[in-house]
């Protein structure tokens, strides 16, 4: 794990709340953190280079852009797991895929431009793998915390 000093942590925590939309946003944040704009920009570049941050930019609500998401689960026989993972991950609509310790051992997210595409892609996975795919879209959100303390 890369070493983060106090300023790195302060930057990560502050910018999880968002960059101001103003003419000199980095200067504003730098002033809050009692550093300079140049140092902040350099630190940000380093945090991205070291992959502490995956990206620095907008987080869109795909549904407000007209797209759709659904969490999907599969119970994949152990012997076939790697092969099925390869088939599933090859689809560009698969946003991420986690192996979990359960009979339902494969959990992935489909992200599509149109809501109708969710079932179309799930069907493609069913056909390719011969396995059931359980599609479980979000019905209600009680909470989404976008910030973790660095």
């Amino acid at each position: 794990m890369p070493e983060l000093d106090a300023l790195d942590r302060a930057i990560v925590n502050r910018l999880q709340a968002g960059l101001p939309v103003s003419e000199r946003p980095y200067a504003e944040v730098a002033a809050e953190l009692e550093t300079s704009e140049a140092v902040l920009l350099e630190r940000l570049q380093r945090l991205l280079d070291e992959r502490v941050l995956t990206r620095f930019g907008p987080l869109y609500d795909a549904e407000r852009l007209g797209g759709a998401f659904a969490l999907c689960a599969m119970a994949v026989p152990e012997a076939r797991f790697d092969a099925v993972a390869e088939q599933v991950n090859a689809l560009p609509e698969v946003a991420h895929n986690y192996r979990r310790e359960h009979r339902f051992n494969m959990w992935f997210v489909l992200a599509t431009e149109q809501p109708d595409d969710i079932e179309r892609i799930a069907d493609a996975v069913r056909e390719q793998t011969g396995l059931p795919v359980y599609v479980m879209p979000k019905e209600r959100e009680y909470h989404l915390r976008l910030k973790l303390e660095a």
Partner: protein
Amino acid sequence: MDMKVTRKPARWPVPAELDGDDEALIAAIQGGLPLVPEPYAEIGRRIGLDEAEVIARLRRLQAAGVIKRLGVVVRHHELGYRANAMTVWDIPDHRVDSLGACMGRFDFVTLCYRRPRRLPDWPYNLFTMIHGRDRDEVLANIARLRRECGLDGIAHEVLFSRRRFKQRGAIYHAPEGGDA
């Protein structure tokens, strides 16, 4: 066993109305914000808008909820959050809203969604994602949730992640942790 499910959720959110300049702006910042002193002026130069117009449009897109946030996306693992468990609960329908709200108040619950059951194989209708520095911390947090939200007698399972196979940088509102 026919697992094909064609039913859609009751309501998909209504897409926001975007014009061509909004779309150009969304495409221009998708890969990340420029790390220069005047990032919005720089974006404007790329797509032929002046800085004030870029700022006005970004504020509008934020207000409309199209952009949830403009900032950093962290890698949980690199920050020391090495364990995550999707914890799923089978809650009587009439109690989901109140118990979901209770669980969502805790700092260690990074998301809390209601989803459809897929009976008979999958009875769980509330999904919580719990990150921790290690598995013990995650389990202690779950015990605290059960105690403080009164979840005794509610069936649940804890699904620890073992491996992440694929993650593309979260451009959309799909937090890390195998959930969306």
